[in-house]
């Protein structure tokens, strides 16, 4: 496996220009779609099967009366432990040699299990093609020595592309600097490969707590419950079985081949 690639989105450098959102559409030839009124500059409200990069605009009045307008370019996290990938029954979702997570459109059958298995609500179902879609980490570009279109377009280098280890080091330094500058809530999200989901290959620098950006505090792999839940099911299977067993043994065993008696008829009558 090749050295893991990553995208580092430093929201402290984001000016919310949405060039990345548009560049992604341009490169991936994704059509426009009727936007909804979001009440702010953001469009759309969530990722869609036609919008893989989504710039979030978060107005947050501060205690001191000042306003902060958090700008964040959100994207598929390309999780080291990816719920979508583990959920996919067809193997359409696969991990590339660069550690990115991709959906093979020629295999996906549209069961939508991945949609409900992404802790970040990234994968979206495309009703026209009947397949699931999400950021491809510009699979075609990275396999041809190019960086992702969104990173390439970003005028302020808010989206940086490179080898994960290098970016993580860089990100660490950046947080430190920001803290010194007085951004007390500056923090990395998904950089730690020992952290949730084994780290995110698209990780972020946030200026506020994750939930402010509609990100889960501690994202978890959905599949972690399968074994427990299955064992509990087995347990109840046994109990149910015993119940049925009793029902059929009683009397059944006792009067093996005795003819039907009146009370049985009675019984039968009143069901």
């Amino acid at each position, binding site marked *: 496996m090749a050295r893991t690639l990553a995208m580092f989105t430093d929201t402290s450098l984001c000016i919310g220009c949405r060039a990345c959102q548009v560049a992604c559409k341009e490169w991936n030839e994704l059509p426009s779609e009727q936007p909804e009124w979001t009440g702010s500059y953001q469009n759309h409200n969530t990722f869609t099967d036609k919008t893989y990069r989504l710039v979030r605009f978060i107005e947050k009045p501060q205690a001191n009366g000042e306003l902060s307008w958090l700008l964040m370019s959100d994207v598929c996290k390309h999780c080291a432990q990816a719920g979508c990938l583990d959920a996919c029954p067809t193997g359409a979702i696969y991990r590339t040699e660069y550690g990115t997570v991709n959906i093979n459109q020629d295999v996906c059958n549209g069961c939508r299990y991945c949609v409900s298995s992404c802790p970040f609500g990234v994968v979206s179902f495309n009703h026209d093609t009947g397949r699931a879609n999400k950021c491809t980490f510009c699979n075609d570009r990275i396999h041809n020595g190019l960086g992702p279109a969104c990173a390439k377009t970003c005028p302020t280098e808010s989206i940086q592309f490179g080898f994960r280890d290098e970016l993580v080091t860089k990100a660490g330094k950046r947080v430190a600097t920001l803290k010194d500058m007085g951004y007390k809530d500056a923090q990395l999200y998904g950089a730690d490969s020992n952290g949730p989901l084994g780290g995110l290959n698209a990780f972020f620098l946030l200026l506020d707590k994750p939930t402010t950006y509609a990100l889960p505090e501690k994202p978890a792999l959905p599949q972690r419950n399968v074994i427990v839940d299955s064992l509990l099911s087995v347990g109840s299977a046994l109990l*149910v079985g015993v119940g049925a*067993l009793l029902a059929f043994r009683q009397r059944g065993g006792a009067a093996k081949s005795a003819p039907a008696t009146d009370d049985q008829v009675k019984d039968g009558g009143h069901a």
Partner: protein
Amino acid sequence: MLKSPDWHLLIVWYFFLGGIAGGAYFTAAIADNFGSSRDRSVFRVGYVLALLLVSVCGVLLILDLGTPSRFLNMLKSFKFLDPMSIGAWMLGVFGMFAFGSSVLSFVDGERMARLRRRLSLIGIISGFFIAAYTGVLLSATALPFWREARLMGALFLASGASTGMAAISLSLYLFGESAGEGYKKVKRADRYAIMFELVVLAVFLALLGGAAGPIISGHLAPLFWGGLVVAGLVIPLLLDVSGVRLPGVVPAALVLVGGFILRYVIVMANA
């Protein structure tokens, strides 16, 4: 900002009928192995019901896919801890057991009967699985309430039992077989199943606490309490134990409706 898989009625029906199929099969298998020869009507109906319903399930599942033509892609990959993946496989396996058992339940002769019992003793496992796995499938997603529900599989299994048995008793009643001793046994089994389901449901809710919000409060709540708990479980149980004289359709039908509502409210909670 999580995403719904947009599962609707097709899936509700699939979960519901799959539960009945599984329940009917393991009930039949138990009757077959531990009941008396006079319970033949029971296991015959059970096996056949299972066969019919599992085929319907297959169709529903395929119809729900975004790209139905690619159903078989599910069988091109096998993921042990992926409910959707093994589920697809087991559907096939269960189908074969149901078929075998049904056929054998129509041929006479002790040798054949022995073979049938052996077969169903193994098949019983797939029966339990089909009834339970859809619950685990939901609890292994990233979506709120589902992901919290540790007992989802157990609950689905219990419901599979109650509805499966109700389905058998209903069929027997309709085929005028309600006079037989088997009928009584099924009803007794069903009584235990319903009691068990009530217990599991109670624990299920207790464990969930607030997370159960979408079904215990909110727009689905009336259905849940009225349709499932009262009409689908408590009333049939009371009728049964109180010995009120009513045509057998009524309690069985109520249990079935309750089973459908259970799947409906739970699936729709994240639709």
